[in-house]
């Protein structure tokens, strides 16, 4: 595989393009590595009352914050988290994405997105009545991440 790096002073941010004839397992693995290139740790401490809970962050549907605390919402429970929202953003894997000033969503738990042109769009989750709003500022990146996640999970199922 040929690897090329192109630098452009006028280009802002970074972009990785993988050119290939067809999507193989190697290409998929490379895609996952690039997507999760930061050292993502899912070891987050969850608290409820005086108890600490141990479970993978993947069970969390979304994180939301009020003025004082950050809460992790699973489909049937709520836990307190000691990290701030921006710290969570840095350590969570790529299936978590910020959708509002006070909310981070796990796209793998998204069931539906009710779009609104004039206002925030409403996100519903699987197996729960909980919902959150996606603000207009975060809507496009959220939908891109959701579609990427959906495409990669469909590809994985086809391979199986």
């Amino acid at each position, binding site marked *: 595989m040929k690897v090329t790096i192109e630098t452009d002073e006028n280009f802002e941010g970074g972009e990785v393009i993988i050119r290939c004839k067809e999507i193989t397992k190697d290409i998929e693995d490379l895609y996952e590595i690039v997507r999760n290139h930061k050292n993502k740790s899912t070891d987050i401490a969850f608290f409820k*009352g005086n108890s600490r809970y141990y479970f993978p962050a993947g069970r969390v549907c979304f994180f939301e914050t*009020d*003025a*004082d*605390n950050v*809460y992790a919402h699973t489909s049937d429970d*709520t836990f307190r988290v000691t990290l701030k929202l921006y710290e969570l953003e840095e350590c969570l894997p790529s299936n978590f994405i910020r959708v509002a000033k006070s909310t981070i969503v796990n796209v793998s738990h998204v069931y539906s997105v009710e779009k609104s042109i004039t206002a*925030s769009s409403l996100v519903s989750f699987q197996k729960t*009545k*909980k919902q959150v709003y996606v603000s207009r500022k975060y809507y496009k990146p959220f939908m891109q991440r959701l579609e990427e996640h959906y495409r990669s999970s469909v590809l994985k199922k086809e391979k199986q």
Partner: protein
Amino acid sequence: MKKSNKIFWGVFLIIAAFIVICFPFGVFDNIGFGTLAATVLLIPIFIKSLTSLNFFGIFFSAAGLGIVYLTPFNKDFWWILLLAALLLTIGFQMLFGSIKKKRFDTQWQRNHPDQFQYHGKHSFSDNVENINGSVVNCEVSFGSSVKYLHSQSLQRANIKSSFAGAKVYFTDCIVDPNGAVIYIDSSFAGLELHIPSSWNVKQDVSSTVGAVDIVGNFSNVGPEVLLTGNTGFSGVTVFAI
């Protein structure tokens, strides 16, 4: 029957009796049936709204009476009256909305002296959203929002929604053993409350041009959670989850 409904029906019947008595003497010969019917309906609404300081009811019922009696003289007057009613409602709500809540607090403490103590420090004029603790405040205006309340011993929740769509979840709240009050103040808004079905919820919300719907069943045992407050031009849906 709720006290507010008693006021409405009481005044309605008194006015109706007055009209019935005066009718044979030709007192209302120059007044049409529609005008009479509107008067009989709007005056009780006005008085009921006045007693509960429901500004929507006060100004819109007064506007309605104005439309009924003044429109024959000036056909374009109706929209002026409605616009004035709307502006007065918003203005009075902004200025005196907290007074209405303090009145309720005093009334509630008088009626339930053995229950919890509400310190009354929180008002809707505080532009701070405290959604944690035994007394939680939540305000949503001009937009859509989902709020998740958190409390280990919920005694009171003040929820205000105006010109907004708001969803409030109580799934992470535990009711104080002495009971709790959920006070809602909703105007030109759609409000959804998601409350655990294990709670013992009693509904006593006063509505003007609106409705409070309960979807699902709540328990009849456990500390009482009183859902109360005022709504105007709003739909409130309470989900038992």
